């Protein structure tokens, strides 16, 4: 078993919180894990990514070779597309629909949606909308991660462990809200693919 995952977003959008939850879940599952992050200048509102590799065997490269990613999880519609050369032909692109516009030449949404739909295995999720529906606007990243649950090698227990590790210090309410966000994303994902 091996899963290669690319997380995509803009510096400051908090993709590392998604990476951390997956990381803790992998520890709970006793899997090997390598997770590469971007620090430094790009964190200032530039395109950022984090790669995650999970396996039941030792993992070598920290980076994912081209065409070997099973999954791109993007918290922003344009950013996921940037890493398509790393996605397997049969891989899944899971992306939030809400754009993060901090550049003057941000593309038209129709063109972006068309590009996303050109990948047969895609899920577009209105994570921000779903997060505000459950009255937890700050958990939209967890809604996006929830949409990826069907493609990840974890049980619910593993997520509970991961969320507790991440948010336990902030109290039971925050943990519950984030778990609800995960569930919301997962349900959307299951219904979309029916």
């Amino acid at each position: 078993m091996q899963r290669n995952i690319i997380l995509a977003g803009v510096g400051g959008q908090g993709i590392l919180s998604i990476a951390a939850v997956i990381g803790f879940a992998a520890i709970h599952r006793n899997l090997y894990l390598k997770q590469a992050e971007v620090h430094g200048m790009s964190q200032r509102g530039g395109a950022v990514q984090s790669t995650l590799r999970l396996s039941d065997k030792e993992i070598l490269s920290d980076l994912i070779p081209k065409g070997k990613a099973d999954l791109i999880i993007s918290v922003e519609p344009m950013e996921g597309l940037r890493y398509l050369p790393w996605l397997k032909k049969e891989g899944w692109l899971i992306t939030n629909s809400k754009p993060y516009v901090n550049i003057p030449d941000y593309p038209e949404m129709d063109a972006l949606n068309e590009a996303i739909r050109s990948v047969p295995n895609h899920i577009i999720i209105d994570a921000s909308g779903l997060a505000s529906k459950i009255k937890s606007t700050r958990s939209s990243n967890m809604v996006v991660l929830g949409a990826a649950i069907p493609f990840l090698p974890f049980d619910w227990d593993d997520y509970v462990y991961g969320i507790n590790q991440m948010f336990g210090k902030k109290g039971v309410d925050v943990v519950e809200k984030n778990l609800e966000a995960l569930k919301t994303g997962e349900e959307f994902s299951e219904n979309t693919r029916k």
Partner: protein
Amino acid sequence: MEKKLLLGDEAIAQGALDAGLSGCYAYPGTPSTEIMEYVQKNPLAKEKNIHRTWSTNEKTAMEAALGMSYAGKRAMVCMKHVGLNVAADAFINSAITGVNGGLVVVAADDPSMHSSQNEQDSRFYGKFAMVPVFEPSNQQEAYDMMHQAFNLSEKYLVPVLIRITTRLSHSRSGIETREQREENKLKMPGDPRQFILLPSIARNKYKGLISNQEHFESEAEDSDFNHYFKGTNKKLGIIACGIAYNYFREAFADIHIEHPVLKISQYPLPVDRIRSIADECEEIIVLEEGYPFVEEMLTGILKTQYKIHGRLDGTLPRDGELNADLVGKAFGFPIPETWNVPSVVTGRPPALCPGCGHTDIFIALNEALDEYGKGRVFSDIGCYTLGALDPLNAIDSCVDMGASVTMAMGAADAGLVPAVAFIGDSTFTHSGMTGLLDAVVRNSPVTLIISDNSTTAMTGGQHSAGTGHIDKICLGLGVDPDHLHVVIPLKKHHEENVRILKTELEFKGLSVIIARRECVQTYARRKRLEASAKVKK
């Protein structure tokens, strides 16, 4: 054995702590920053009161670490690759003095310049200083090497260099840790003249360093980190250094490796091992991250019949970071069919944060300079380097820490008046103060803007040495109080700030304008912490 999920940087910090570290010295710099941050957050480091506050620059860090070593304790000094340029005087000379307590220098290189102005390869510094160098291929090795490096340092009384690169620094992996070694006790150097580099003493010390070279080499020959793997296909032998070994294994993940392989993670080069793989193979390919350091040593200047492949003959790209795809390509492996980036995707370069004080003072400066035309603003290393990009286009240079002040002065010497220097508070105390003293001494017609956000922002908001007293530092250096202004870079002060800038640009002597407003990131973090402290109460 305990298993921890750690960044490469954190593995180095944990390794040093477990090896009996007494002091960590550093100035923040991507990709090395997280080493010190890990030590700072470590509860045991706090309990033992291990030194862990930021230094003003890499040179002061290196020297303080050498001082701790003089007193018999184990010290580590960490920096990004270009930081080693700043610390080079102390570093090279520490190889001549030698050490007392173990001294390990960590240099984090940034191939492909993700967050740097060059991609220099620190292994050259190791060779230049004639000290042993370790280059881990993964996070576990990085951890394990810290124990070895300190032991080797104390065995030969020599500083040891650890060279890592961005990808290892900022990638997390499971690490098996060992039991913690006790710290060294305070102990004077055995030779009371060891650290006095008077020529007569230095000449002897240097001879000692030279005679130790064969020992360093035999340590590398016998090192567990250097490994030879037998192979049956002797048409090509593979020499893979540091993290390149990892990429090589990844490229061959589904393919049986039939070539002999020599993995190198400890220098000086194990010459016998290299000769033996070269003797048994017809050709050699060298895989290494950074410059063609090993490849160049193998090829030399005189052409021989022996074929060596690598970055110099175009088998691998001459510059930039390696990865498994590039290594695979060097062996002729096809890249799997995949997707292209859709043409609709546009670039998203980094930018100053919304509400940043740098932006406000840049806008004021652009307006004040309008009448003089473009090309007069010498800037520096920090977030404000992003002022070079659209829509601000506010700066004309960025070279090295502190160069804004001195380059502006040189340009003014040439007749470019007014010349403007633009620097941040942390970079100013790192390397701008001495340049300012030069400008004071000759009353150079330079307008120096210190954009003071009271932190080291680019690397994530570490403590900045001059916070709260940048103005006093300037006055202390002799800046005329009539030409020293502290302004607040906010829109509501824009007109006033433009007026002050214009007046000082007209002045034919040195003036300093400190634009002081807290970094929006550290401000937000502080407010969050205050809010959560309130909730707890």
